[in-house]
């Protein structure tokens, strides 16, 4: 499981620079795992009848699942999860997770990419702007992680 990477060097970075991309698949089982791990048992994240009953198109991922999974691109790039000193997003569109249990279907696909958004030489920090897309639409907006480089 090692994701050994060479930590980025501040002076080598430029605004707009690509830091890479990552694809995340999410299934109903993933949402059940996240519910258990986080303590967020809102049934819109695991019960179809409840979700449609409150006007949703179906079961949707926790916004916090998507936010938490998307930042892994940044922690792996930074080389230390503790380097992420500030992380924020707005949740704009839901990620619909259909029931693929017992099939070969991989689940909903979330695509994450990141680029250097800003550099602060005095603070020694870099802001990484994340683009997080599901079904052709941005599901997170203003997803920004500030990384303190050693």
């Amino acid at each position: 499981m090692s994701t050994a990477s060479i930590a980025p060097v501040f002076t080598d970075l430029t605004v707009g620079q690509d830091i890479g991309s990552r694809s995340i698949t999410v299934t109903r089982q993933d949402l059940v795992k996240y519910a258990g791990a986080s303590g967020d048992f809102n049934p819109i994240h695991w019960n179809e009848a409840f979700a449609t009953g409150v006007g949703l198109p179906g079961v949707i991922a926790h916004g916090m699942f998507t936010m938490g999974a998307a930042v892994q691109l940044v922690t792996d790039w930074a080389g230390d999860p503790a380097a992420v000193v500030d992380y924020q997003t707005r949740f704009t569109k839901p990620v619909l997770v259909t029931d693929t249990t017992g099939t070969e279907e991989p689940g909903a696909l979330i695509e994450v990419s990141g680029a250097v958004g800003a550099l602060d030489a005095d603070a020694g920090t870099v802001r990484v702007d994340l683009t997080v897309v599901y079904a052709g639409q941005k599901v997170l907006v203003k997803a920004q992680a500030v990384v303190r480089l050693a």
Partner: protein
Amino acid sequence: MNPDLQGRSYPAAEVYDVGREKIREFARAVKATHPAHFDLEAAKALGHRDLVAPPTFAIIIAQRADAQLIEDPESGIDFSRVVHADQRFIHHRPIVAGDRLVAELHVDGVRAMGGGAMITTRSEIFVLTGDGTAGSGVSREAVSTTTSSILVRGEGQ
């Protein structure tokens, strides 16, 4: 919806003890693979005292604090109509296994949105230091500030 919620605070309640297996479980749940979440030696090699929590781990503590507001009968919030609108984590220092955390909840904003309301809360999360026995001196140090906005949908929204 009670408009007088703005400015309300809920003091630190129960202590949250951060465990290694909880960090591993949460990390797996957000599909994190960084060794500092799983392997003590890897965490120590990066200069950490113990396993490091993922950047959004503090949501566990923040949502427990938020529950005090949502479950407060005076708040008038219907949880089934709540949508998470935005979230921010500012980390003053990383959360690691062994930390004993408490959260103070502050209601920073309440504003009408259509027939519903947008509520912004802030949790100030502290780590307790000292062992709590008489004379050892328990003090606290700021760990994370989390802010969250929830939209409580009105009828027909």
